[in-house]
């Protein structure tokens, strides 16, 4: 029974990683850049919900919508100001800029909200589910997190397969120059990618803080790095890959903590990552890279 309970905790943590990883992987797949500020967009989303809900007493649903909206705009603005001027520059310059944006957001939050940790009120107010005569307890946040993750993944896949904007994204990710020649609005498509990724970051942040109720300007940093690992694990650029990578990473982390060592859980996660990359360099579901001549 303990094993099942650990597994469920792992699924819950993994689902949060997966939603964050989806944002990483989409941006990487389409804009070919690592958006290290992604984790901090999560943190901003949490602060928006915290401020609205706990300080102004706004309904959770409206707070969530506001957070998604603000994060979406933030994502687009960051892309326009920080990344777009560097579209032609080498990838190292963009990477450093992303790290700069990350520090900027953290310090902005420090200035506005202060350094002290705040206790986040869960947006899910339902009683936990008791199974097997009370031996197994599944919290409502866990159920909501896992369901949201699945819904988001399916919706994203449908969006990319079935809509024109989605097809444009695919085209840009395959070959940016050719797509432009075929009349695809590349800048618009990249902006849309950032908008969706940042909106997802808001959702991920709210679920993260609901499950692990603490909020500080550094809340997004560690989950951001773990989710990036998950994206690489599953094959960066692949949407099902981010999903699988996130879940596997979450489960390994929790089971490692429970059965091997609670101090080494992070080390175990990264050891598994190295192993996977040695055997399958493009990640679990990544496409083999073909060098174009």
């Amino acid at each position: 029974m303990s094993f099942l309970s650990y597994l469920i905790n792992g699924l819950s943590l993994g689902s949060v990683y997966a939603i964050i990883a989806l944002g990483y992987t989409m941006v990487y797949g389409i804009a070919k850049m690592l958006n290290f500020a992604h984790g901090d967009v999560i943190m901003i989303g949490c602060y928006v919900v915290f401020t609205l809900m706990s300080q102004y007493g706004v309904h959770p649903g409206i707070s969530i919508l506001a957070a998604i909206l603000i994060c979406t705009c933030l994502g687009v603005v960051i892309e326009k100001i920080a990344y777009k001027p560097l579209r032609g520059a080498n990838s190292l310059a963009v990477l450093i800029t992303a790290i700069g944006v990350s520090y900027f957001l953290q310090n902005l939050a420090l200035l506005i909200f202060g350094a002290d940790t705040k206790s986040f009120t869960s947006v899910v107010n339902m009683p936990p589910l008791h199974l097997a005569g009370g031996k197994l307890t599944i919290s409502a946040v866990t159920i909501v997190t896992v369901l949201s993750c699945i819904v988001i993944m399916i919706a994203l896949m449908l969006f990319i397969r079935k809509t024109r904007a989605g097809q444009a994204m695919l085209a840009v990710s395959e070959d940016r120059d050719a797509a432009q020649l075929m009349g695809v609005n590349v800048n618009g498509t990249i902006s849309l990618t950032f908008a969706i990724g940042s909106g997802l970051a808001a959702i991920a942040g709210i679920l993260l803080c609901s499950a692990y109720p603490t909020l500080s300007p550094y809340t997004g940093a560690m989950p951001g790095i773990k989710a990036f690992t998950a994206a690489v694990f599953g094959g960066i650029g692949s949407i099902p890959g981010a999903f699988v990578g996130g879940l596997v990473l979450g489960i390994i982390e929790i089971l490692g903590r429970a059965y091997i060592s609670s101090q080494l859980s992070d080390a175990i996660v990264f050891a598994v990552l190295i192993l996977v990359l040695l055997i399958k360099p493009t990640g679990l579901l990544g496409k083999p890279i073909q060098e174009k001549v």
Partner: protein
Amino acid sequence: MKKLLSMALALVLAVGCLTACGGGSGDKGGSSDTFRIGGIGPATGAAAIYGNAVKYGTQIAVDEINEAGGLNGYQIEYDFQDDVHDAEKSVNAYNTLKDWGMDMLVGTVTTAPCLAVADKTVQDNMFTITPSASSPDVLMGDNVFQVCFTDPNQGSKSAEYISENKLATKVGIIYDSSDVYSDGIRAKFVETAKSLNLEVVSEAAFTADSKTDFQTQLKQAQDAGADLVFLPIYYTEASIILKQANDMGYAPKFFGVDGMDGILTVENFDTSLAEGVMLLTPFAADSEDEAVKSFVTKYQEAYKEIPNQFAADAYDAVYAIKAAAEKAEITPEMTYSEISDAMKAAMVEINIKGLTGGDEGLKWEATGEVNKQPKAVIIQGGKYVSME
């Protein structure tokens, strides 16, 4: 001619410098009709809550003593320097205070800067009493004394308290293995628990990189059948643990140490979750003791908040100085080194009641370590209430 002049000038400067350096050691820079007590601690930055508490607590004690006629008939001057919880700034602050003519130091507040400053005070033989730096490592010379418990001491006292009051038979521990404070308390707790036949059924660690999810650690404690969970950690993590235990439907007793002090002030924290949490702290602001009541009233009037244990420890530090100074019959004419020699002989002989001493009061070992009884408080109705 010009060359000769500049040579002469250089010579004058060099001699001037030498005399200045020579005069520095042990000579009094300040006046000889007042005692000058210095304080160092973080008044700004992330640890400001501790530094300000010490600053205010010291101020109240100094004002009281001055009103009552001073220290051996001399008034006390008090200057507190901000170190932003930074070792280098702390040493600078110490030098500033020495230039001012400091006779004794109440500080520093936090452990890491205290290690750097104590190194200096031992070299200089400056009498030092830290209200709150809790590592045993700060007691590096016979002129350094501590008012708070050392980390290992908190561990053994907690185990003794749990065992004596039969709070539990099976204990689980959740601790931060990446923090010396937490790990130090845990190690001593486990050692003491063994000798008291208190069964430690689970020890689950977390690290600074993964301190937001404690469901696994809680589940381990629950599966091991722990009816009390010992939390030698800070209040931020403890607030998450209480929330997650509640979500899991696991309701053991929770027992913390001084790092838990502050849990009721976490913004937006549902304090009903902390109901029934016990913690070992040397000071309870709600105590019926007359001295505590008067201190809390004065503190609230002056600074608009309820004093924590850091303020109380600082208050006791000043009264320890007073008791030792009277015994040693020191005067401001003495150099700080002479004061220090007289004070450290007197410190081991005094026994003051203090705010944090309980019934038996505070006594000091020659090593600088304090001997006092901890108080256990329990959180009831969103407030700390003494358990006696």
